[in-house]
C-alpha cells in the first residue's frame, strides 16, 4: 500500500518525461515516506524502552541500596563477669560505659596487643545491652555468656561497601588502622554478618544508635491505619456506589455528588492532609500522630477510588439479572442486595485492595498530621490503645530516615522501601488473583 504514488500515474502517449513508475523500483518519495514510517515506529519503541529502562533502574537502585539493610555486622564476644566486676561497674557514674570497658578489655585479651580506643571505635556502644542483660538475668553472673553485639555503624558500612578505606583516611571516628583491625577480627571470626531481624521487628532509634533502628513499630502503625481505612471506606464506598449506580434519580443533587466524587479523586493528597489537620486535630481535638486520624484522612482519600471501581463492577452486572429478580417478585432493594451485589463482589474487592495499596504508600497527608519526626520507640501496650497512641507509619518512617544526616539511615530508608513494596506487591497480586479467579465475563 505504501508504493502507491498518485501523482506519477503515466499518461499514455505522453512520452517518458516523468520518471517511469514501477512496482519494482522504489521512488525517492516512497523511500522518504517509508523512512519516516520507520523513524516514527522507532520513536515509539524508544519511548517504551526508556520507560522500561527507568523501571529497571529504579528497581535496581532500590534493591542494591536496600538489601544491605537486611544484614548487620556483629561482633561475637564471650564474657565472664564476676559479681565484683558488676558491682564495680554499677558504682561508677557512667554505668553503661563501665560495662563497655569490661567488654573491650575482654576483646583486648583475645586480640592481643591493640589499643582499647581502637576496639571501642569498632564495637561502638554496646554497654546498655550488656547491662540490660545482666540486670534481667542475674544468674548469668559468673558464667560464660556468648554475646553477639552489633558493631559501630561505620564498621557496618565498611563491610557493606558503604564506607571506603580512602574515605576514612583522615577520619578520627574510624582510622585506616582500625579498618585493618576490623579485617583481622573478621578473619578470626569475631566479626561476622548475619540476618538483621531487628530491622524487621525493631523500633526507630536515636542518632547515637543507628544500627538498632527498625521498621517493625511503624508497620504496626500502618496496619492500624489500614484497618481504619478498610472498616470505613469499604462499607461507605459500596453503599455510595449502590445508591449512585442503582437508585439515584437524575437530578441536581446526584449530579452534585457525581461532580464531587470525580473532583475529589484528583485533589492533591496534601490537601487531604490539610483537611485532617484542620478538622480532625484542630476542630475535633483528636490527638496528633494517632493512627486513627491517619486512617480517617486516608479513608476520605481512598473513598473516590473505591467508589469509582465499585460502580464499574456494578455496571458490569447485566440488566437481565436485575430483571429476572424483579420478575420473580423481589423488590428493587432485594434484587440489588441479593443478586447484583454478590455478583459484583470480586470486582469490588479488587478495587478495594488497590485503593488500600494506594493508601498504604501515601505519605504527604501523614506529614501534616504529625506522623513525622515522632520517634515511635515501642509497640502499643494494648490492641485498643494502638488507635490513639502516637505512632508512625511505614512511608512516614522512611521519610524520617531519608531526612536524617547519617548515611546508615539512608540504607534503612531503602530497606524500608523494600518492606513497603513487598506489602504493596502482595496486595496487588492478591487483587490480580481475585480478578482472574472470580471475575465473570457476561
Amino acid at each position, binding site marked *: 500500500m505504501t508504493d502507491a504514488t498518485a501523482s506519477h500515474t503515466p499518461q499514455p502517449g505522453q512520452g517518458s518525461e516523468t520518471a517511469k513508475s514501477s512496482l519494482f523500483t522504489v521512488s525517492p518519495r516512497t523511500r522518504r515516506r517509508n523512512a*519516516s514510517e520507520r523513524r516514527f515506529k522507532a520513536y515509539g519503541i524508544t*519511548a517504551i524502552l526508556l520507560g*522500561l529502562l527507568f523501571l529497571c533502574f529504579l528497581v535496581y537502585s532500590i534493591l542494591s541500596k536496600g538489601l544491605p539493610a537486611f544484614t548487620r555486622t556483629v561482633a561475637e564476644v564471650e564474657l565472664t563477669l564476676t559479681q565484683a566486676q558488676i558491682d564495680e561497674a554499677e558504682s561508677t557514674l557512667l554505668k553503661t560505659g563501665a560495662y563497655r570497658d569490661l567488654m573491650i578489655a575482654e576483646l583486648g585479651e583475645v586480640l592481643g596487643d591493640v589499643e582499647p580506643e581502637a576496639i571501642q571505635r569498632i564495637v561502638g556502644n554496646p554497654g546498655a545491652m550488656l547491662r540490660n542483660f545482666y540486670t534481667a538475668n542475674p544468674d548469668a553472673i559468673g558464667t560464660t555468656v556468648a554475646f553477639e553485639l552489633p558493631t559501630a555503624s561505620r564498621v557496618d558500612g565498611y563491610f557493606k561497601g558503604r564506607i571506603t578505606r580512602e574515605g576514612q583516611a583522615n577520619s578520627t571516628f574510624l582510622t585506616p588502622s582500625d579498618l585493618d583491625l576490623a579485617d583481622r577480627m573478621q578473619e578470626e571470626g569475631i566479626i561476622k554478618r548475619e540476618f538483621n531481624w531487628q530491622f524487621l521487628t525493631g523500633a526507630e532509634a536515636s542518632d547515637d544508635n543507628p544500627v538498632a533502628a527498625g521498621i517493625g513499630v511503624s508497620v504496626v502503625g500502618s496496619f492500624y491505619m489500614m484497618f481504619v481505612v478498610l472498616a470505613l471506606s469499604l462499607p*461507605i464506598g459500596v453503599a455510595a456506589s449502590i445508591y449512585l449506580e442503582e437508585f439515584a434519580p437524575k437530578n441536581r443533587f446526584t449530579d452534585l455528588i457525581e461532580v464531587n466524587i470525580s473532583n475529589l479523586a484528583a485533589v*492533591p493528597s*496534601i490537601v487531604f492532609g490539610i483537611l485532617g489537620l484542620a478538622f480532625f486535630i484542630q476542630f475535633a481535638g483528636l490527638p496528633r500522630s494517632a493512627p486513627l486520624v491517619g486512617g480517617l484522612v486516608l479513608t476520605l482519600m481512598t473513598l473516590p477510588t473505591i467508589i469509582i471501581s465499585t460502580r464499574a463492577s456494578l455496571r458490569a452486572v447485566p440488566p437481565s439479572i436485575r430483571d429476572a429478580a424483579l420478575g420473580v417478585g423481589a423488590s428493587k432493594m432485594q434484587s440489588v442486595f441479593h443478586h447484583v451485589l454478590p455478583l459484583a463482589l470480586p470486582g469490588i474487592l479488587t478495587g478495594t485492595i488497590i485503593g488500600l495499596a494506594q493508601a498504604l504508600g501515601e505519605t504527604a497527608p501523614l*506529614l501534616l498530621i504529625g506522623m513525622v519526626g515522632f520517634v515511635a520507640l515501642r509497640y502499643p501496650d494494648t490492641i485498643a490503645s494502638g488507635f490513639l497512641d502516637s505512632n508512625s507509619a511505614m*512511608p512516614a518512617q522512611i521519610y524520617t530516615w531519608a531526612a536524617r544526616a547519617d548515611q546508615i539511615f539512608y540504607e534503612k530508608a531503602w530497606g524500608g522501601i523494600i518492606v513497603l513494596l513487598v506489602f504493596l506487591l502482595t496486595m496487588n497480586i492478591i487483587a490480580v488473583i481475585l480478578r482472574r479467579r472470580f471475575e465473570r465475563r457476561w
Partner: protein
Amino acid sequence: MPNLWILIIIGVVAVMGFVGARQRALSSGQGDIRNLHSLPSFYGTNAMLAGLIPSLVVLALWTAFQPLVIQSSVTHIIEADQELSDGQLSLAMTDVRRIATGLELAIESGRLDLDEVMDMRADVTDVRPLLGEMGVAVGSDVTPRDLDAAQRFVAMAQTGNLLKTVLVIALSVLGTAFAFVRTSAVFRARIAVERVTMALLIAAASIAILTTVGIVLSMIVNTVEFFRLYPATDFFFGTRWNGTSQLGVLPLLWGTLYISVIALIVAVPIGLFAAIYLSEYASPAVRSFAKPALEVLAGIPTIVYGLFALLTVGPFLLRVFGSGGTFGVDWMSGATAVITAGVVMGIMLIPFVSSLSDDIINAVPQAMRDGSLGLGATPSETIKQVVMPAALPGIVGAILLAASRAIGETMIVVLGAGAAARLSMNPFEAMTTVTTRIVSQLTGDADFTSAQALVAFALGMTLFVITLALNVFALYIVRKYREQYD
C-alpha cells in the same frame, strides 16, 4: 461507663429486638408466613434498626461534642480574671487538661471519690504529688485557678458521661420497644426497612459532598484568618518568601510551575509515543507485557520516587553537571534541584500520560483508520494526520490532568527540589514549591494562630483552586471530545 460497654448493651438490645419482633410477627400471623406482609426477618431488622440508629447517632454526636462544650465552659473560668492571648490560653488549657486527667485517674483507681476531688483546694492540699502518683507530671505547682477549672472539667465530664449513658441506652430500648409494639401481620416492615436502607445509602453518597465542604471550609476559615494577619496583596504579589515575615507566593508558584513543566517535557513525549506504539503497532504479546510493566511505575508510592530523586538521580546529575563533572561544567552545586525533581516527577507521570492517551487513541473509531489506510497512507501518516487530530482534545485533557498531578505532587519535591525560594531561570538551582512549603510550615509544633502556620492554609487553598480548575477544564475537554464519536 466507657463507650465500649454502651455499644455492647446497645448491641444486646438490638439482637433481642430482632429475635423478639420476628417472633411476634410470626405469632401474629398464626405461624404461617403467608399471612404476613413481609418476610419475618424484615420485622426483626426493623426493630433492630429502630433501636440501633438513633442511639448510635446520639452516641457519636455526644462523644464528638462533649469535649467542645466542656472546653468552652472551662475557658470562661480561665479567662474570668484576665484576658489571655490564644497561645497563653492553649497553654493554660493543656495544663488544666493534664490536671483533670490526673484527677480522673485518681477517681478511677479508687484513691479519691468525686466529692473529695470537688472539695480539694489548691492552697490547702498539695495536688502535685497526688498527680505524680497517678503518673501525670505537672510542670509547676497547681494554681487555684487551674484546679478550679480542672474540677469543673472533671465534674462536667462525669455528668456528661452519665447523661450520655442514660440517654443512649434509653433511646435504644425505647426505639426497639416502639418497633416491637408496632409489629403485626399487617405492618409493612419491608417498606420501612427499605426506606431506612435507602436513607443510609444516600447518607453514604453524601459523604463526598461533606468531604469537599470540609476541605473548602477548613481552608477558607484559616485563609481568612491569615489575611487578617497578613495583607492579601503581599501574599499574592509578593516576590519574596522566607517563611516568617515575607510570605509572597510568587516564588513558590514559579518553582511549582517550573518543575511541572520539566516533568511534562519528560513525560509527555515518552508517554505519548509509548501509547501510540502500544495501541497502533505493538503485537498482543508485546502489549500484554509492556503495558502492565509501565503501569508498575504508577503503582510505586511517591515516597520511593522522592528517595530516588534525593539519593540516586540527584547525585547522578551532580556528577554530570556539577563541578569536576563529566561535562566539565560547573552548573550544579547540590543534588536537590529543579531538574532532579522535574525528571523524577516526569518518570512518575509517564504511565499516567500513556494509559490515559492509550484509552483515548483506542476510542478513535477503527473506520477512520481503515479509510486512511485504504487511501494509501502509511500507518504513521494515518496516526499523524487522522488519529491524532481526532484524539487531540482528549490528549490535551490527559496532559492537563498530568499537569494537575505534577502541581499537587508533594513527596518528590519535598525530598528532591530543595528549600530555597527564588525566582530564577536556572534549572540546576534548588527551588521550592507550594506543596513543600505547606509541609514545612505545618510540621512540628505548629501554633495555629501565627501567620507562619496559617499561610499554609492559604497555600493549600491556592493549590486546591489551581488543581480543581485544571481538572474541571480537562474533564470538560475530554467530555466534549467524546460526544463527537459516540
